[in-house]
């Protein structure tokens, strides 16, 4: 279950974004009512064997051998797709699934695993991001005429809404809370929720997950986090190359590297789970090997939520075939340095014992994607139109960071 940046509920953190704001808002409906009753048709449809349109991104990942949210969440109930019937029938949840089926998808359970989007308060303006997730990008988009209005204030700045969430958390049997922004560390609600959980003594049983953009450090929040039973730290970075500054606009690669090392030290001291969180685009796919190398050397895993879907003109599949072949060759050259153990697909991407093999499998999934995903280079002119507009605002130039792309961008009107 998810509460998105505008305060609307979503039945899954990975569900595709269409119509996402047509679901109830935290002001209209309590989180527990949404979970127990409003989500009933979703559960009922799944129990009837229907494929939900919202699951399409996970199915695309499965097609290319990439571990996805569907598999990861199923695993938390003991269910594995490669042995579905046996593992489902053995799941501790089987009786609950039966009860839910008898009651048209309604459940008496409370959420155990939530993603909470804290709003769009962010000091970065990543090139693939949206105004709903970055206040800095929203301001820029309005200035250059890409949007007429900036998004409304973050839902969690409203004390009443935030208290509604906190009350629901205290009533639920929470195992895992995952926070994203905006940038979590500069969003006041993040600190307030952590503080409340510690005051209510729930930090001894709850695992906190969060992602940070590696541009800021807040020691007060670090001091709160180290009190929790477990922390899953996600560090957002696209490549270990200056191109990261262009893609994750507002960041500086040297600061990013230093901040990563600082987090890794804290994580090692406190036995946290660390992941690099990436969103490969047509640009960063070129230097994706630098991410895997960094992660391999430090025995940490790499995770991306999906194969980028929106904006469609920034998908890696927009890369023309001859450039795609070079990107594939770079990834394969990196993969050839290591031995892929012939093991089954690693679904638990947070087990450090599997980290290196996991990222080899993840890199292979991007090779599979680039080799088989349909050519979308017809979107290059749209990409160039966007670049012209955004670079006029930022006074930068993609070719300063990625000169290898000059021909393909020039041929599309750059």
């Amino acid at each position: 279950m998810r509460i998105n940046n505008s305060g609307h509920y979503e039945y899954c953190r990975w569900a595709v974004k269409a119509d996402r704001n047509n679901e109830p808002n935290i002001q209209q409906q309590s989180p527990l009512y949404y979970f127990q009753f409003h989500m009933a048709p979703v559960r009922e449809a799944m129990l009837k064997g229907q494929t939900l349109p919202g699951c399409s991104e996970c199915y695309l990942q499965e097609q290319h051998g990439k571990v996805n949210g569907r598999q990861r969440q199923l695993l938390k109930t003991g269910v594995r797709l490669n042995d579905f019937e046996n593992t489902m029938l053995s799941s501790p949840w089987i009786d609950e699934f039966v009860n839910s089926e008898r009651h048209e998808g309604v459940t008496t359970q409370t959420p155990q695993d939530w993603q909470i989007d804290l709003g769009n308060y962010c000091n970065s303006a990543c090139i693939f991001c949206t105004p709903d997730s970055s206040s800095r990008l929203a301001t820029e988009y309005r200035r250059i005429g890409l949007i007429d209005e900036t998004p409304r204030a973050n839902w969690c700045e409203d004390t009443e809404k935030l208290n509604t969430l906190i009350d629901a958390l205290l009533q639920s049997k929470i195992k895992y809370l995952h926070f994203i922004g905006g940038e979590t560390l500069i969003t006041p609600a993040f600190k307030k929720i952590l503080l409340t959980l510690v005051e209510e003594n729930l930090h001894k049983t709850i695992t906190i997950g969060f992602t940070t953009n590696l541009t800021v450090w807040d020691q007060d929040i670090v001091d709160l986090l180290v009190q929790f039973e477990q922390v899953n730290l996600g560090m957002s970075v696209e490549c270990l190359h200056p191109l990261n500054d262009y893609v994750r606009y507002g960041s500086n690669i040297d600061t990013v590297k230093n901040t990563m090392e600082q987090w890794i030290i804290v994580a090692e001291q406190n036995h946290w789970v660390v992941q690099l969180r990436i969103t490969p685009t047509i640009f960063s796919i070129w230097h994706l090997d630098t991410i895997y190398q960094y992660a391999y050397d430090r025995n940490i895993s790499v995770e991306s939520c999906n194969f980028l879907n929106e904006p469609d003109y920034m998908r890696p599949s927009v890369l023309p075939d001859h450039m795609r072949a070079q990107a594939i060759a770079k990834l394969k050259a990196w993969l050839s340095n290591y031995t892929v153990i012939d093991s089954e697909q690693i679904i638990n991407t947070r087990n450090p014992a599997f980290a290196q093999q996991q990222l080899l499998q993840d890199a292979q999934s991007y090779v599979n994607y680039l080799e088989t995903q349909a050519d979308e280079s017809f979107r290059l002119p749209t990409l160039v139109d966007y670049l012209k507009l955004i670079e006029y605002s930022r006074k930068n130039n993609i070719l300063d960071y990625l000169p290898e792309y000059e021909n393909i961008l020039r041929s599309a009107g750059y």
Partner: protein
Amino acid sequence: MKTFSDLLATKASLAVDVNGTVSYMCLFDTLVLDATKPATVNGIEVLPKYRYLARDGVLTIPSPFYSWYHKISGQGWLLIPDNFSQ
């Protein structure tokens, strides 16, 4: 298998292969295996891989097998319902 009802109607079992001899157990049976012999359960290697868990030459796998395997193979959390008892 198309629906959840179809799944519930499935007659699932554990094919326990000990040194080439296969016997069939119920999904929720406790398994007691001679730890000196190679064994698989539904194709999953159990011995000698988990021999270090044996006591006095016997590996006892508590029911259900798949929950044991989830934990022992490092699959992470196994969440349980609020009212779960076993």
